[in-house]
């Protein structure tokens, strides 16, 4: 009796790893992202966004946009096309579970203060809580060059504006002119 139990136990232990290798986990899939987006999605590079702690539905939306070439990218659209929806969801949930580690950036405190006013007035309703991770993506603590690239894509028409966002950005520019976008970027950079 004890022998049977023991052998069964051993067999299960021996087979367990083999079963998991059949489909790579979200975590395993996410290994490949680390090169650009940092370990577990906390980016250390200046133009790569952190994706740790990201809203999983926003993650999937973004990847699908890359798959459909709806977002301007260098190589992300090619990479995105390699995954199934299930794999995207697995990765999304993996990154959602990761803690976001932010590194301090140099920013202009006066601009950031101005940015906060603009954010509260025009951006906060969607990018809730100062742009912390949520259903409108993550802005707080993102690298400044990444934020700049993204805004350039929107402004130049390389990326479609999310619903209502153009109206809000136009309103912020109407308030602060050319200063508006840098002020917002400095504000987001100030949060870590």
């Amino acid at each position, binding site marked *: 009796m004890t022998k049977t139990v*023991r*052998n069964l136990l*051993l*067999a299960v*232990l*021996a087979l*367990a*790893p083999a079963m*998991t290798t059949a489909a*790579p*986990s979200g*975590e*395993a899939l996410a290994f490949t992202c680390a090169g650009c987006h940092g370990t*577990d999605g906390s980016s250390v590079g200046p133009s790569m966004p952190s994706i740790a*702690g*990201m*809203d*999983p*539905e926003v993650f999937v939306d973004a990847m699908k946009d890359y798959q459909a070439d709806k977002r301007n990218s260098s190589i992300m659209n090619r990479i995105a096309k390699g995954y199934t929806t299930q794999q995207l969801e697995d990765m999304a949930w993996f990154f*959602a*579970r*990761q*803690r976001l580690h932010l590194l301090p950036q140099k920013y202009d405190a006066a601009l950031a203060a101005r940015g906060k006013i603009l954010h509260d007035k025009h951006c*906060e*309703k*969607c990018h*809730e809580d100062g742009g912390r*991770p*949520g*259903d*409108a993506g993550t802005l707080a603590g993102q690298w400044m060059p990444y934020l700049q690239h993204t805004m350039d894509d929107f402004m130049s028409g390389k990326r479609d504006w*999310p*619903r*209502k966002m153009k*109206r809000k950005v136009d309103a912020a520019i109407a308030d602060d002119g050319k200063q508006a976008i840098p002020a917002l970027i400095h504000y987001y950079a100030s949060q870590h």
Partner: protein
Amino acid sequence: MNTMPRRIASTALACLWAAVFSLCITPAAHAENAAPEGETILQHFDPATGKRIIPNERCLTCHGDEKEKTDVRDDGSKVNIFVHRDQIEASVHGEQRCNSCHTTISRVPHREAPEVIVGCVECHRSTWEKHKDDPSGEHERLKVVVEQIDSFMGSVHAQPSKLDESRTNATCYDCHDAHTVGKLGTQQREENRLKNPELCGSCHEKQLNEYRTSDHGKAVLEKKDSKAAVCSDCHTTHAITSPEGDAAKKAITKNCGDCHEDAQRTYFASYHGQVHRLGYTNTAKCHDCHGGHEIKGKDDPTSEIHANNRLENCRNCHTDANENFLSFWPHGDADDAENYPALWIAKVFMQALIFGVIAFFWVHVLLWLYREVMDRIQGKGFIEDRERPDIVYFRRFPAVWRWIHGLFAIATMTLILTGTTLLFSHTAWAKAVVNFLGGPQVEGIVHRTAAVLWLSIFVAHLAIALTNIWRKRQTFEWFGGTSMLPNWKDWDDLRGMFKWFLGRGPRPEFCHWTYWQKFDYWAPFWGTAVIGSSGIILFAPEATATILPGWMFNIATLIHAEEALLAAIFLNSVHFFNVHFRPERFPMSTTIFTGAIPIEEFKHDHRLEYERLVAAGELDKHLVKRPSRRADLAASFITSVLIMAGLALLTLVLIGLMTMPD
């Protein structure tokens, strides 16, 4: 382990190593980082379903912003997006999450222009289904909601719109602002009541404009009196049907009465109301006279019931109505001595009469029953001698009187049945009878036909009786033993009977007619005068009104009913006992149909007459043979049927009386 053979042990060891090795790899692929401390995005998702949780606070960030109550749609048009946080929180739905109802909202900010689609019905039904057996009763109110849903489903609002078949005429949120559905007794409900007319008026504009001019409308819309009638008080909230239909007409009349209790009570006492309460809408209803949406007091010259406009109302049905109709009291109240003294006096008199007659004769019946039962126990009284069966009979009634009594009984019972359906229109049996007859119009024809027959019989009888007296005018003694006229002996007999009842004297001996037979005979004379004359007044109202004032209808309706009630109770209890049910006669006497009474029985009940006839040598003229077996059976059959019918009528009348609403 020690006893294990080496070879097997080494296999096991190899497996173990393999397992341990694999364990070293798998943690890297499997181990999950412990959930990061503090708030993470995972808190925005339901761990069980993986679905996003959108807290109401998140919705209210935009929809609760007082500074930005509107937004611009994608097409540039303005849209109100504001909701009152306090109202929602105070409403019955205060603890619901926004997207429990707004189920199409799954992302905030909305990726696409959101559709306002809410499925109220399914949610309320399934929630009630789930909680209906809860002992806490917390969801008890949902029962009402679900009932209202069913009413709505059968209403005209749930029908497809004629202009656009893809939608219903109205749906839940066309009327209910779910954000302000208050709990019972709350301020929110009061406020919603005041908003009701304008809400309904957003589709029913014409009706709203009419309503604004009415007393109800002014009270609600101008004085903000939430107690005054709003649309739903009359039309119901959910079971709304076309006002042309019977269901709506009945509901509206009932609903008026919810506030105007006295008006409804007095209306139901009138012919109009009686027919209505039977379930028919062909007589005048509240709104036929008072108007619907433009309802106003009688002093307002634009009111339909203002003295100058009232006759127009009457003429809607009574096309030939004349000025006399104006003095009719549509809400005449016999209990209101101050405003309707004539009606009050009529009622008091009739009720005193009913009470007096019935009380006296019921005591008479009970005492008589007591005495005869006591006598029989003691072996006294009239007992059939079976050794000497009845062979000789006394001829008591000629054929014409037997026919007259039979037809009179049938006509009277028909009148009682059809007439009391109106008096007791509140009962289920009255509704069933009228329905069986084919409605109040047919009933009216039957009642009038029976009335004509009844009066004709009465007149025919009078003619025959007077002719008979005329023929015997030389010898007829007006106050003699064979006369129906009351005399002093009747008074003595009555006193004698009471003495006998109480065991203080012998049973009186009677002439040809006893006093109770005389009472039974003369009662219809009074009845004819009262029921007949009031009946003729009511027979054809337009014709009557050419002579009599309108309030005569009120008086006539009252005394016609009260006198009929007296007759119905008296005939079917007292008369039945005196003739059929007292122990000497029980179960019945068939004399009125065979015309003959056994000579022994005649001797017992009419000894003085018997002795007079013997003394005069005239007895033989009145003796007849025993009726044939067939005639006897036929008479028993007819008598049985009439007794059964009479007892059934008595039962129905008593049910009606006892269940009479105040």
